[in-house]
């Protein structure tokens, strides 16, 4: 029996690491995708969008597999609920990254040049929150004392993202360059969508801080 549990434990360790790798990659592709769209590299953007769609369904499969194994083999009974909760909310991050690129692909917003840098910076900050929250999740599994360190970074980047979002929206609405009100609203909509990635990452970080307290010996 011990050998059986050990091999299952190792397998799950690998699955969890693989899942977290995919969440980080989703954040990076999201950043690259928004950047490619904004600077007009439409082909690259479409490639990124396809990549993230594949990644999203891949991550879903791994998550379901982890859930199945955790219940079937009765592993980590004490923290099973927390681990599954964590994986599900991390999945929301991948989902929203994919959704935002999808919206870009469908709605093809017309982004004026003076807003390009704001959009790219906003996407970069959101991607950083994803990177840090995944580090926090890894720490939850291996080095519980480090969780708060990464959670703090998530809060920091999320706050920065909020500032850039506000700046972008003000620029859009105060600008004489954008004439139609509908385009201004469109800019606001995409700014909010991109910033939403950092909001979801922050809510995962909040959960992680609680789980970390519960897991402390």
């Amino acid at each position: 029996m011990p050998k059986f549990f050990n091999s299952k434990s190792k397998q799950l360790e690998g699955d969890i690491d693989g899942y977290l790798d995919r969440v980080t990659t989703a954040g990076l592709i999201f950043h690259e995708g928004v950047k490619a769209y904004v600077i007009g590299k439409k082909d690259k953007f479409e490639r990124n969008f396809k990549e993230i769609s594949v990644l999203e369904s891949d991550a879903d499969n791994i998550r379901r597999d982890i859930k199945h194994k955790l219940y079937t083999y009765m592993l980590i009974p004490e923290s099973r609920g927390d681990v599954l909760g964590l994986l599900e909310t991390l999945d929301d991050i991948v989902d929203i990254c994919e959704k935002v690129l999808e919206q870009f692909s469908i709605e093809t917003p017309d982004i004026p040049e003076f807003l390009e840098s704001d959009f790219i910076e906003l996407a970069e900050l959101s991607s950083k929150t994803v990177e840090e929250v995944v580090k926090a999740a890894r720490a939850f599994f291996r080095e519980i004392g480090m969780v708060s360190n990464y959670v703090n970074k998530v809060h920091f980047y999320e706050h920065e993202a909020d500032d850039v979002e506000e700046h972008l929206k003000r620029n859009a609405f105060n600008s004489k360059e954008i004439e139609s009100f509908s385009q201004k609203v469109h800019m606001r909509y995409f700014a909010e969508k991109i910033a939403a990635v950092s909001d979801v990452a922050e809510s995962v970080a909040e959960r992680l801080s609680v789980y970390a307290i519960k897991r402390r010996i």
Partner: protein
Amino acid sequence: MLTIIFFLSSGLFLGWSLGANDAANIFGTAVGTKMIKFKTAALICSVFIILGAVVSGAGASHTLDKLGAVNELAGAFIVALAAAITVLWMTKAGLPVSTSQAIVGAIIGWNFFSHTATSISSLTKIVGTWVFSPIISAILAYLFFHITKRIVERSKIHLMRLDFYTRIGLLIVGAFGSYSLGANNIGNVMGVFINSSPFQDITLAGLFHLSSIQQLFLLGGIAIAFGVFTYSKKVMMTVGSGIFKLSPVTALVVVLASSITLFLFASQGLHNLLTSLHLPAFPLVPVSSSQAVVGSVMGISLAKGGRNLNFKKLSQISLGWVATPAASAILAYIALFFMQNVFMQSVFK
């Protein structure tokens, strides 16, 4: 033969209730938190309790024998019965109960009844051990907690692997705890029957020797195992999610500290080793596994900075040191009177 079984029945009943209650001290959290299946826990627990009882049970039993050598089977029956009833009654009243304290009280009751002088030195040794066992357990748990915490934090071990190692640890420590429980507490169950043991020494195939006392302990061990299988699951589920809510890792520390405490007060080998080195040896005395566990939990509370220290539990423990033996002694005295004068059985020589 029927008479012998009848007279041993009270001891076997005491053994059953010990198995039903005390197995939870060892495997309670492991089973309650579903880290180990009840069947696995019950099997390991039973095998090692019986091993501990047969191999190392003599030491602690000998101390009880010195306190009062109950020399008639009918007397031993009453002494064990009085202890069993006290345990049952105190469990129903929701008080932390110890078979060790109940049996000591009952033996003193027999001493009074048979006008045998109670060895004050033995009694002091026993009571002193009761006070010290939770303290030793608390100190050990405090130390182990810090060591475990440091190891887990420094090793950066993955949650999944930690879970695996904790399971293995709970099984190994559980086996050790069961062995210690059997060795330390079999005296409570069968100790009073030693002087009136109806068994003869047997040697199987010229290799395997089983003394009459070991046969008695084997029987008692089986009764404890029966208690483990038939009733301890209910108690384990309560322990796992009730009074002491522990995480599997802290449970491992608690069980290890309590098991070592029980082992220290039961191991003849350790006793001889320390004595041969001219070091102060631990007296071999049956102690309460429940109180050792409470001591360990207190030790962990202290290690965590004194949070959740349950003073009510502490006062209940000290009450148990006096109330349990007193109740058991009075009950034994009255029952011995009835056995002698109503049922016309000789209860002492």
